[in-house]
């Protein structure tokens, strides 16, 4: 079967081809340049980060064998041959894991409450005064840019060793993150109910409570649950700097080369994180339907 394909006259074709080539050439040149710049940056970064491929390949075997070692008991047997010996400290570990989860729960709730009380001031459409919005935004920015473990390091000195420092560090970081996310939800809220409530002579607080909050509450809860999930991971390392939880045990096990303990603790952490991921995912799905999975 032959199909007639209309072919343009030579002259017209040449013009079009030239234009096409020119467009592609410019794009290619830009791509090449960008790639070159990127690779240059990589090389500089590699020098800055003291990348040494020889060390890497020499010791890479160590990395693989590390996993071999953490899966071996002291008597040389594989860990799963003797679960009781592998998880010898499960009572203590579960207790500390509970402390970790509790730390992140209390921290998240603190953060959510503070974020909730600050976010209306940070949102473009509900803030009562521009200077207040600017101030609150900067405070939230500060709270979420400084890593929570840095706060934990400082709080350990101020409040003493223990989970309290961890809770406060997580609370501050969550305030920053949730405050921003909450205010973004508020900025997307419909303003007509606010006008409606205001027209009845209501105060600013009543406007927020009766016009904005019902629209945004589901989104708030969704973000707070997500934050809780993230905070469980964060809390699992708070112990590295002495701020309580399972991290303390883990860092001791890693530093002192208690190999089988490392794998046992890591496994319990991973399992806990899984369970919490699934739990929060499920409850977010139940509470707000599938589309609220931000």
């Amino acid at each position, binding site marked *: 079967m032959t199909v007639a394909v209309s072919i343009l006259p030579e002259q017209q074709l040449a013009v079009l081809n030239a234009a096409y080539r020119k467009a592609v050439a410019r794009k290619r040149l830009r791509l090449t340049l960008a790639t070159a710049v990127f690779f240059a940056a990589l090389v500089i970064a590699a020098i800055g980060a003291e990348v040494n491929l020889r060390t890497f390949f020499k010791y890479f075997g160590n990395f693989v064998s590390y996993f071999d070692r953490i899966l071996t008991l002291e008597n040389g047997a594989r860990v799963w041959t003797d679960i009781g010996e592998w998880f010898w400290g499960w009572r203590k570990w579960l207790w500390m894991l509970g402390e970790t989860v509790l730390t992140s729960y*209390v921290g998240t709730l603190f953060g959510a409450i503070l974020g909730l009380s600050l976010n209306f001031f940070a949102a473009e459409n509900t803030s009562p005064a521009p200077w207040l919005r600017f101030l609150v935004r900067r405070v939230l920015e500060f709270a979420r*840019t400084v890593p929570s473990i840095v706060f934990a390091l400082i709080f350990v000195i101020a409040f003493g060793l223990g989970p309290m420092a961890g809770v406060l560090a997580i609370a501050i970081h969550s305030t920053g993150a949730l405050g921003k996310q909450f205010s973004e939800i508020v900025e997307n809220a419909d303003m007509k109910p606010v006008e409606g409530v205001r027209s009845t002579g209501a105060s600013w607080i009543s406007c927020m409570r009766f016009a904005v909050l019902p629209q945004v509450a589901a989104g708030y809860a969704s973000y707070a649950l997500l934050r809780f999930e993230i905070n469980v991971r964060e809390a699992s390392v708070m112990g590295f700097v002495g701020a309580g939880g399972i991290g303390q045990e883990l860092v001791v096990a*890693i530093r002192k080369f208690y190999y089988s303990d490392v794998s046992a603790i890591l496994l319990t952490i991973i399992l806990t994180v899984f369970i919490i991921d699934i739990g929060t995912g499920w409850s977010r799905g139940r509470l707000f339907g599938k589309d609220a999975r931000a």
Partner: protein
Amino acid sequence: MTQLPAPNLGELRARHPDVFNRPISARLAMPVMIVGAFGIFVFGLVDLDFSPARLVSGLHQLGWITLMMIPPDPGSSLPAYLVALGETLSIALLGTTIAAVFALPVSLLAARNIVPSNIFRFPVRRFLDSIRGVDTLIWALVWINVVGLGPFAGVLAIAVSDFGAFGKLFSEAIEAADRKQVEGIRASGGNALHEIRFGLMPQVLPVIVGQVLYFIESNTRSATIIGIVGAGGIGLQLAEQIRVLEWQKVSFLILMILVAVAAIDWISGKLRFAIIGRRAVA
């Protein structure tokens, strides 16, 4: 003024029975949840040794520390801090790039439209999940055991933990890609690799680049903290100065981090918009 007609409650009730006669379980659900959440909160406060006395004395200490931090002053170690900051940025850039390069092929294996078989996909996904379940700091500790103290361990730690995150994000991007272009390639006689290269990659690459840029940004933050366990960068300096209570230097370092993160935010935001346009932000 006209009076609104008084509502006839009986009629309203009859018309909207599901509003007025909600089952008791639905009415109680919210208060029970709130009381439960609050109960765990209070239990947590008690269990984690929150006492007003500790809080007050801690806040007092904290106020004192804050006063000591002013004004921020690097002393004579500004050059060392700048080098450390450069190290941190290098760690973030290199770690993220390595992770992205390795995650791309693996994410293909985790995507439903490329590997339809659940049996093959499941282990890949769980593998990625377990990597993500372990915090970057823990990976840093492990890599320090392997390649020794220093920024290289940090690069590898970020690379490994991002590998897990990228594997998941990329595979989601691939699953969201449009099927039609792949079918077009197949119809013109392309094999499976051609389908991926010419049908899939052009669609997902902008999304992936956006995500990588976003991660470089967020890894600048992570890279500042892995120094705390000894994996190089500015975190090492920060942890040291906090331990020796040099508060003016601490506040200077924190300011440096804030400025650096803001700068990276700004640059990568610009780049992202240039590459993928304004709307598609990962």
